[in-house]
């Protein structure tokens, strides 16, 4: 009976732990890295794509549909983007829930949902799955990058237990320890979006397993204020834009790296 306390979420072990939740968090620490940095005039998100391969049909991702083209960065509302790490199917269900919650708020109050409130909505749902019987918790951690008039730009992180916290820069997924210590060293207060983009790409290139960064392994998004309308503007980069950005920061593929170039 060694596994008495880890087969159901609702049961504490004698040491006072909830094993299913710890396992869910363990699942996330194997997922692709997602990184967020809060700047004074915007927020930057980047994510590592795990599902790649020569035969994978990426033609849908090339144009970028509504709410992002990839598997890890989504538009939740016009003022919030999120990066997810964990089980993709669970994440899709949570993203759908978040979008519905945001629209419900818009319907009731005629304003974009405040970022922390949207985070709370999702955390309430996630917490429910740690307490009620027969269900496993969501195997998903999220980063929320958003803007609202109360606290301007914000970055939040939520985990499967339903805990959430606000951050200046943070990372979830594989190698998150390495990334966080890098961020701790390099983050400055009063950083602007331009610098934050550089910081995110630099940390990403150091923590990812692959040697060279490219749009097939990376997703990227920023949230800034539109200078004309003063409304939040989310930009989820298309693959071609990611490659251009990497080239600009000197982290892209070099010509000699490209396979079959010489033949």
């Amino acid at each position, binding site marked *: 009976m060694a596994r008495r306390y880890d087969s159901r979420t609702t049961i504490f072990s004698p040491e006072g732990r909830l094993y299913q939740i710890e396992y869910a968090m363990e699942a996330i620490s194997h997922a692709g890295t997602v990184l967020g940095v809060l700047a004074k005039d915007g927020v930057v998100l980047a994510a590592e794509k795990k599902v790649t391969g020569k035969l994978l049909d990426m033609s849908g991702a090339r144009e970028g549909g509504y709410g992002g083209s990839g598997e890890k960065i989504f538009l939740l509302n016009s003022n919030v983007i999120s990066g997810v790490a964990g089980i993709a199917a669970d994440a899709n269900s949570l993203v759908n829930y978040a979008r519905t919650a945001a629209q419900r708020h818009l319907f009731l*109050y005629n304003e974009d949902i405040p970022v922390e409130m949207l985070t709370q909505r999702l955390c309430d749902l996630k917490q429910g799955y740690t307490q009620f019987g027969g269900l496993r918790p969501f195997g998903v951690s999220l980063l929320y990058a958003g803007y609202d008039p109360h606290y301007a730009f914000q970055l939040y992180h939520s985990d499967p237990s339903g805990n959430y916290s606000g951050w200046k820069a943070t990372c979830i997924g594989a190698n998150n320890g390495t990334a966080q210590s890098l961020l701790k060293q390099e983050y400055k207060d009063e950083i602007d979006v331009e610098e934050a983009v550089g910081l995110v790409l630099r940390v990403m290139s150091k923590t990812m397993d692959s040697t060279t960064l490219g749009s097939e392994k990376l997703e990227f998004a920023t949230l800034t204020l539109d200078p004309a309308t003063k409304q939040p503007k989310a930009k989820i980069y298309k693959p071609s834009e990611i490659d251009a950005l990497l080239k600009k920061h000197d982290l892209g593929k070099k010509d000699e790296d490209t396979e079959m170039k010489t033949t």
Partner: protein
Amino acid sequence: MDVSFALTGKGYVLVAADTTAARSIVKMKGDEDKIKSLGPHLLMAYSGEPGDTVNFAEYIERNIRLYQIRNLYPLRPPSAASWIRRSLADSLRSRSPYSVNLLLGGYDTSTYTPHLYWIDYLGTMATVPFAAHGYGSYFALSLLDRYHDPEAPLEEGLATLKRCIDEVSKRLVVAPGKYKVKVVDKDGIREVEL
């Protein structure tokens, strides 16, 4: 027979309402406060069917308070106005609709701007620089058209309000005798004497 006015100025909203509670031709009370504070920076003047008014105002007051307790920050004036309008619109389509008219004045502490909304019992909402409900509106709106200045300091705003009240006293047969005047600005809500 209720009369209520509201007008915006530089960084404030003035809300005034008469203080009579009447039933048919009889004045029952002369010091009724018909302006509720819905939050630290939100005022609501209500008029209409006696009974409905207080009931609806308390319902709104408590729900706005509940939102504030639940969500760490109060609703901003535009969102509060939208929610109150929806409450009235839903009520209109129910078995027992409220017949309450509202003037909602608030100061948005995140954008530092005053807001004023005119809302009626049909769920009509308008964002306005000045507003009035009741018989007083027939006399006051033309005056406000002429004298209202959205950049006026508080003294000028009060003078404009005084003009309206005086005109109503002069021309309206059933003019109320006393008004309560409240102002909301960056420091919150306070009552002012005319």
